[in-house]
């Protein structure tokens, strides 16, 4: 019903045309609220958004083409640069696709390490997303600093394990690059044990906060039906009440061994998306506790896999995981040589933007920024 009205809409200069005048405005690309170089072409009727078209590609470097010219292994460090907040989950998604393509088995200890690092990634991703969200609602500083303080502890763990805080380049086809260093497990257990305290503090500060409730409830509503139709995945989808978590559906890796729940929202508004992320962090902590308890000793690499000079047989495979932002998939076609014939990234950030316009039409500019913030995009992944 909204679409027909938009079709007929004509854009005019706002100056001196009375109250019905419409203003076409470019939000971004150089603005902190756009989380990178991202632009929204909006048409405004006063403060109300009438039309919104996302514009991106400013960071496009044709990652897929570069990967076609490189060996399978050489693309692994490049996947870190897609969603640079969660490089370890990117590594996992790519490794999983290659493992499907070549039929590689992963040793049990490596699977546990993958789960532990992926859930830590989810924790720090959700914490900083909520931090940024409060920042966009005008709470300058404090909540974001709190979440960054916690994120720092997790990044320290990543640095101890992989040598890098954000560009981890850690996983390999058939396992992981290095084993856990001495003392890492104790440090990880400590971080996981202390995290609930931060979450409680965070929730005391935010969950019942009157300003947060006023700014988020009923804002940017997305129905479950439209979310499925638009291919939305991750916490946004589940905030709209659709029970679809790839960790439960595909049971990739060893996720069937862990006892955890999938939090669902009811209204599909910004508040639900905030709440689902908080609850997901609590579930991640559950998984982490179980994984840190059960992790066995053993090899971390499949002995049969030759990583250097890796040449899978001709064929194709699509592998996907539940990254912190949604379904991250890799589609690979091999022609039997050392380079992939086709290498495609299915970026959750990009596809979650498909329904941004529907979520924002009719709301104010300030609410649009908040709604956009809860989609949680990273431009390295959108533009590739």
């Amino acid at each position: 019903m909204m679409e027909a009205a938009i079709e007929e809409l004509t854009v005019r200069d706002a100056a001196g045309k009375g109250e019905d005048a419409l203003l076409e405005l470019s939000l971004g690309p150089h603005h902190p609220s756009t989380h990178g170089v991202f632009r929204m072409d909006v048409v405004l009727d006063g403060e109300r958004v009438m039309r919104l078209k996302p514009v991106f590609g400013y960071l496009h470097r044709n990652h897929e083409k570069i990967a076609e010219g490189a060996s399978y292994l050489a693309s692994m460090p490049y996947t870190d640069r897609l969603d640079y907040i969660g490089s370890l989950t990117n590594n996992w998604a790519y490794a999983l696709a290659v493992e499907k393509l070549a039929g590689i088995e992963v040793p049990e200890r490596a699977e546990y390490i993958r789960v532990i690092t992926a859930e830590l990634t989810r924790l720090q991703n959700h914490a900083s997303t909520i931090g940024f969200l409060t920042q966009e609602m005008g709470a300058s500083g404090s909540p974001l600093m709190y979440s960054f303080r916690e994120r720092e502890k997790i990044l320290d763990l990543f640095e101890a394990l992989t040598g890098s805080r954000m560009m981890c380049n850690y996983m390999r086809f058939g396992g992981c690059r290095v084993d856990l260093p001495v003392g890492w497990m104790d440090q990880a257990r400590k971080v996981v044990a202390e995290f609930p305290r931060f979450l409680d503090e965070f929730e005391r500060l935010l969950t019942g906060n009157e300003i947060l409730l006023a700014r988020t409830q009923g804002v940017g509503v997305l129905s479950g039906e439209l979310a499925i139709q638009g291919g939305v995945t991750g916490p946004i989808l589940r905030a709209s009440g659709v029970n679809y978590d790839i960790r439960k559906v595909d049971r990739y890796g060893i996720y069937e061994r862990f006892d955890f729940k999938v939090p669902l929202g009811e209204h599909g508004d910004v508040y639900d998306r905030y709440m689902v992320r908080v609850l997901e962090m609590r579930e991640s902590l559950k998984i982490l506790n179980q994984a840190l308890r059960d992790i066995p000793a053993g090899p971390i690499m499949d002995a049969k896999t030759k990583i250097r000079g890796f040449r899978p047989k001709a064929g194709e495979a699509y592998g996907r995981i539940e990254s912190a932002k949604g379904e991250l998939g890799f589609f690979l076609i091999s022609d039997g040589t050392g380079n992939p014939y086709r290498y495609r990234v299915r970026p959750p950030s990009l596809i979650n933007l498909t329904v941004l316009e529907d979520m924002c039409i009719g709301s104010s500019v300030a609410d649009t920024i908040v709604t956009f913030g809860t989609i949680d995009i990273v431009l390295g992944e959108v533009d590739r």
Partner: protein
Amino acid sequence: MDLEKIKSDIEEAVLDCRLQIVVNPSPSAQHSLVVAREHAAAVARYLRDDAELRLDYCSNVSGVDWLDTETSEKVKTKKLVDGVEQEVEEVRKTRTPGYLEAVYHLYSMEKKHGPLVLRQRTENRGDGVTVASLTPVWRSAEFQEREIFDLYGIVFEGHPDLRRILMWDGFEDHPMRKDYVEPNDYEYEPTPHDAVIAKAAQARETERR
């Protein structure tokens, strides 16, 4: 999911529709169905709405560029050479034209199964080749089909908003094609500074004299 059964079910449900199964030899065993352009939308709607399949979620759409392939075989033929019949070996080349492909990975959020891989192929690798857009069936294909249009040059018929998405509007080629050659000055854009730079260079030149 049994692909043979899905194939025959579709062929029964959609009039005159013939599908082809592409076997995937890799251990992933994700085989796919090739659908012709004229039936693509009907098949997609069937896959989405069929009570058993309910593939309501189109996860991934990717373009693939398959180059022309040339196979040569040696053929022995008899020819008259200087009036004497001789057996001569000739190399006969057969050229299979390449094509562009759009690959759809479909899942069901309701039934929690998948993936079903659906492929559409263009006739050749020329400019402006078309396949049917499936965005009217699954909106999640909107940006992804735009990306394929941008990077591969496949035109999706029936797409509501087919524009370049990652490259800028004035860009002319399709960089993901296998035979793409990047120009030396592809980042060149004329700016008002050009005139100023030329003037400054001229001024320097006169000063030097």
